[in-house]
């Protein structure tokens, strides 16, 4: 597999693409990286200490102890509290508690702090991710509101710094992406292709980790853009050019080959567009390095062990 934005994906393999609306998801398979807990086990929201400050802890689970990697742009939603999202990824050593003082509030009007009780997590929508990444290490809790206003306006929602207009208002539609596009056994990553363009690459340390972040990614990170780009009109089904079952099977196989070739071309184009980005190391944990990647066409964060990618969340900087 091609090298993308400095990460070498040679040890990984692509699965059969799945496609709904204009969104194609290509499963990524490969060797798991040992010792990294899934977010469900290793990343717990402790509390929000004040607007813009989120505290996370790695408690382990069921006797499992290991490193946790905070998924990039994870956000938390809780009834009656002001929802927050993080601008960056981070390492959480076993038992470690970390204060993220550069988190952003994504709900302009509701008061109240998030606590450890019932909440669900999301990933910031694709359209907000580059802006959020640029705002890492900056203190203002309201720093993402202008971008959220633009995002909402672009989706025909009220222009307010209130991400819940999308997360809650379109939730019934967005959450169906989790069923419309399916997690495949053993999958530890995915390429997201919107229309004819690679818009995201997500690679997790292991399948359990990816299974945890999959709903948040497909529903909330890539779902809004997919929803926005879908056509309204139902298209009449065009029969295949076939006069026997064998020809029909061959036509479908040819269609699958064409789709794989299309994906390959899209990835190759992205490899060029995403080439030679700036890579800035942010954190270290033993042999692991957490780095921020920013290029002309790509942004994101990666965790690597030498040349081996362990975690990656890369996305286009601009949607248009």
């Amino acid at each position, binding site marked *: 597999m091609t090298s993308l934005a400095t990460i070498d994906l040679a040890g990984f393999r692509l699965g059969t693409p799945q*496609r709904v609306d204009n969104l194609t998801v290509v499963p990524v398979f490969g060797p798991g990286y040992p010792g990294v807990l899934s977010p469900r086990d290793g990343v717990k929201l402790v509390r929000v200490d004040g607007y813009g400050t989120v505290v996370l802890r790695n408690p382990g689970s069921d006797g499992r102890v290991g490193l946790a990697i905070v998924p990039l742009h994870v956000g938390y939603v809780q009834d009656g509290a002001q929802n927050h999202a993080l601008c960056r990824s981070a390492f959480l050593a076993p038992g470690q508690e970390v204060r993220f003082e550069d988190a952003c509030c994504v709900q302009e009007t509701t008061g109240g702090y998030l606590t450890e009780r019932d909440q669900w997590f999301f990933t910031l929508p694709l359209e907000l991710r580059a802006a959020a990444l640029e705002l890492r290490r900056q203190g203002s809790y309201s720093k993402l509101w202008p971008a959220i206003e633009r995002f909402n306006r672009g989706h025909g929602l009220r222009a307010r710094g209130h991400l819940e207009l999308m997360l809650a208002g379109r939730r019934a539609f967005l959450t169906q992406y989790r069923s419309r*596009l399916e997690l495949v056994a053993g999958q530890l990553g995915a390429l997201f292709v919107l229309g004819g363009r690679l818009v995201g690459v997500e690679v997790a340390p292991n399948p359990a980790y990816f299974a945890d972040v999959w709903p948040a990614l497909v529903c909330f990170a890539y779902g809004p853009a997919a929803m926005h780009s879908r056509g309204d009109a139902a298209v009449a*089904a065009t029969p295949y050019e076939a006069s026997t079952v064998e020809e029909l099977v061959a036509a*479908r196989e040819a269609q699958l080959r064409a789709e794989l070739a299309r994906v390959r071309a899209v990835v190759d184009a992205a490899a060029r567009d995403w080439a030679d980005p700036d890579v800035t190391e942010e954190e270290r944990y033993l042999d692991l390095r957490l780095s921020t990647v920013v290029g002309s066409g790509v942004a994101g964060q990666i965790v690597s062990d030498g040349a081996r990618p362990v975690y990656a969340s890369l996305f286009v900087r601009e949607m248009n």
Partner: protein
Amino acid sequence: MNTELIAQLTTAGAPLAVTRAGRVTGPDATDHAAAFERDPADYALLALLPGVTEAQRARMLMQLLGPSRVGWPETTRRTVDRVVRLLVLGLPAPVVGTVLLALRHRRANHKHVTRAALRLLFEHAEAAGFVGTHRRVAVSIVEHALGKATARGVARALRTADPSIVDARRALLRFLADEGAASDRLLALYARPASALIPAADAAARLDLDLDGGRPAVVTATNRGDLAATLVHRLPGGASPDLDAAQRRYLAAAVAAVPRYPGRLALVVDRSASMRGYGEREWAVRSQAAALELVLGERCAEMSTVDTPGAGTDLAGGVIAALNDRPDLVAVLTDGYENACEGDLARVVATLPRLGIDVPVVVCVATFGHSDDLALRRPAPAVPQRAFWHEADLGPLVLWLLLNTRAAAAGAWLRAGLTERLALVEGGR
């Protein structure tokens, strides 16, 4: 098969009504009359198709009661009688009253009309309330059934306990099971003043024509039928002698409520990740799909099962594979989410006629409950699709499969299936 009529039967429309002048409005009678002329028994059985609207059932009742039955074979007369009885007891009392009023205007004075009228006034679960709220209609119906003089004479005889006026037993009571209640009802009907008649509360619910009762208002993973509830525990790996025994017991009960499919059915089963669901609904959809698969395995003369190929949801690939078995019908069992190239099922089904294949394909969509949004779950809009979520849906679903089968014997299969359904509905009362 009465394809056009069947389509009408489940389409919402204006209710059957009759004007003071006797003009009947509501569902068009043309296709009803034609189907009745072809075969009254087959026509009558269609009233038991689940989902037939109240207005259409009223039109059917009127069609079944209006003509004379002279010259009918005994089997036809018997089937029609049984269906009429169910319609009279299963439709709301005012609706049956409207039908009988219309028949009075048409001077349909057959014995079967008399029996229907008496059944409405004396056996219908809502009869007491109907007599209270629709007294004039009720009087009109009973006087049409018995004759005005006889009806009034019976009332007077009962009120005065004077048998010399009319022999009430011979004229009325001998037709009825509960003579005491019938006497009270008739006396109430002719009570003076009419304003003194207080509508009585009806104790029982009317007959359930669709066998649709007992569904939960709040749906959970385990209140959608006993078989599915057992499978919710078995599918994640739970196994125990108790669960095995429960599954056998509940399967037998579920099978008893499902008509037989005498043909060759190919079932394409979507076992992809989305069928499993998540959260509080995890395994719910998959369990009801598995319940259907088990029931069909017991009720189909021949059934082949084909899993959708690949890791995602390739419904079209499953259909192509299923055609190898030369089935009478291909049924795709899925949650409706297709992602191995969305729209491919529609394309493949649209291609089949070009290949000389006329096997019908239908989609059975397993849902969690009655309120699932199916807007994104129609993988092939031109292909017949039916959703199901409760064990009580399985019988109607198999009838629908029979309706969509085009085998030479499909008409006879449907008739047999509806006759089984007739017995089941009769079992309810």
